[in-house]
């Protein structure tokens, strides 16, 4: 680490490598030389306090009543980098009878600094119990994710519409 930091300033002062190809057909303007050097520049170090962000894999998930209903086994992330669902290893006794169930990301709440209750799920065990089991390799079929029940807004309400939720998974 120390050696790398010492080499840092020296690296940054190296002349940028010209990126434009000499025989290019299109008269492209001289490309800003960021592409090549950025890959060779040392990465920045940022710092995350334990209370700010923490790992969630394997951490216990508590239901609305506060009881531990399972542990996070996996996180499903989409193309844009947004987590869409978490897979929870749910239920059972000493590993016998546990099932993996995917729940939508907005149904989860996180408290990184709280080691007792790091992850809370808005859905009760009854709401998720009947979901089909999540399989990593589902043979190309879409995975079933349990979402929060669709909130029905009263007709006169001008409250912001809840984000369109997927209908609850049918077993």
């Amino acid at each position: 680490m120390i050696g790398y930091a010492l080499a840092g300033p020296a690296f940054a002062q190296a002349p940028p490598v010209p990126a434009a190809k000499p025989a290019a057909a299109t008269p492209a303007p001289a490309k800003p030389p960021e592409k090549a050097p950025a890959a060779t520049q040392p990465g920045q170090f940022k710092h995350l306090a334990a209370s700010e962000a923490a790992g969630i894999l394997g951490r216990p998930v508590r239901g609305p009543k506060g009881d531990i209903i399972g542990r996070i086994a996996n996180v499903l992330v989409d193309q844009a980098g947004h987590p869409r669902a978490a897979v929870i290893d749910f239920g059972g006794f000493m590993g016998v009878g546990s099932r993996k169930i995917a729940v939508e990301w907005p149904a989860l709440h996180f408290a990184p600094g709280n080691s007792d209750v790091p992850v809370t799920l808005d859905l009760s065990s009854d709401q998720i119990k009947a979901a089909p089991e999540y399989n990593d390799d589902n043979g190309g079929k879409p995975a079933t994710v349990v979402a929060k029940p669709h909130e029905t807004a009263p007709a006169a309400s001008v409250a912001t519409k809840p984000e369109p939720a997927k209908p609850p998974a049918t077993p």
Partner: protein
Amino acid sequence: MTPRRARIPSLVGALHPRPLDWLNFLAAALQTSFGPFVVVYLTAHQWTQVSVGLALSVGTVTGMVSQIPAGALIDAIPVKRVAAGIAIVAIGLAALGLGLRPQPLPVLLAEILQGAAACMVMPAIAAMSLNRVGAGGAGVRLGRNASWAALGNGLASGVMGVIGYYISEQVVFLFAGALALPTLYALVRIGPPRRHVRAENTPVAASPARPLWRLFLDRRLLAFAGCAVLFQFANAPMLQLLGSALTRRDGMAASAIIGACLVVPQLVVAVFSPAVGRAAGRWGRRPVLILAFIALPLRGLLFTVVGNAALLLPVQALDGISGAAFGVLTPLIAADIARDSGRFNLWMGSFGLAGGIGASISTTLAGSVADHFGSNAAFLFLTAVGVALVLLAALALPETGRGSGEA
């Protein structure tokens, strides 16, 4: 019903446990941690599902590959307590390793160690038991072994479940590792056999006229190995399937019922094993085995129709009946076959391998059937295998006992 007079020995046994009883109890308790619980533990330590599956497969494969060599090894070691001791130390170390270092390399080593050692423990204990009973006492003694092992397993499941939930999963493995110490103490307390070593434990040297591989063609061996394959095939996935179906239906409320479904069969095994051992001596191995095997497809069938949680427990009691018979009769039949070859542990290893093959194929297959066609279809599939088992035992398995009077 067995007459009161014949019941007294097992009652006395329960009131005055001997070191051999404790050994069975503690060795079984020690091994209870190495079940589906390892998955829970590793998941809690951020292991991905693929890695967990891989680690468990390493354990399973090691176990299967070690069965026969371990059997041959125990046959070759004259003092069986040494073999048992080595295996117990290995399992204890594996449990400690798993508990202290949930990283890839230590976990793989622990799985390999436990896989190999687990093949050695019960056969070595059974061999020790044979050396400490007279000609007529094998059935009863092996029945007591199964009984105490079931108590150890049942109690440990409950205790470890509580520790895992209220304290931590890590402590479960540390506790299991610590259990190795009283187990070794019980082993030391047993002392050398007072009679000379039984014929079943004295390997007869192979000769050109009677090569070792020829012994594997023994019809009794092949038939019971076939029964072992089918029994584990039908039996091994049932509890997991049941648990999954219950969790699907009842959510978290199912956890307590699943726990009860784990413990009830162990209690049944504990109560009935000595009687099974005695019955196998009085009426022969075949009738007892066939009768008990019927409980297996019956249970599979009942799982498709019984929904009420309270009724599930009596159905799970059937698991105890078939389990008790299989647990007592495997070493008994191995001893019968070893009467002329002296290779008791080699046959135990063969039966262990056969059972392991059945269980491995079945868990994946039954899981697939349940995923595609539902749990009921999976239960019916296992019921069909159970029926095949009963037929195999009825039609192909010869009677291996010496005749009535041999207990």
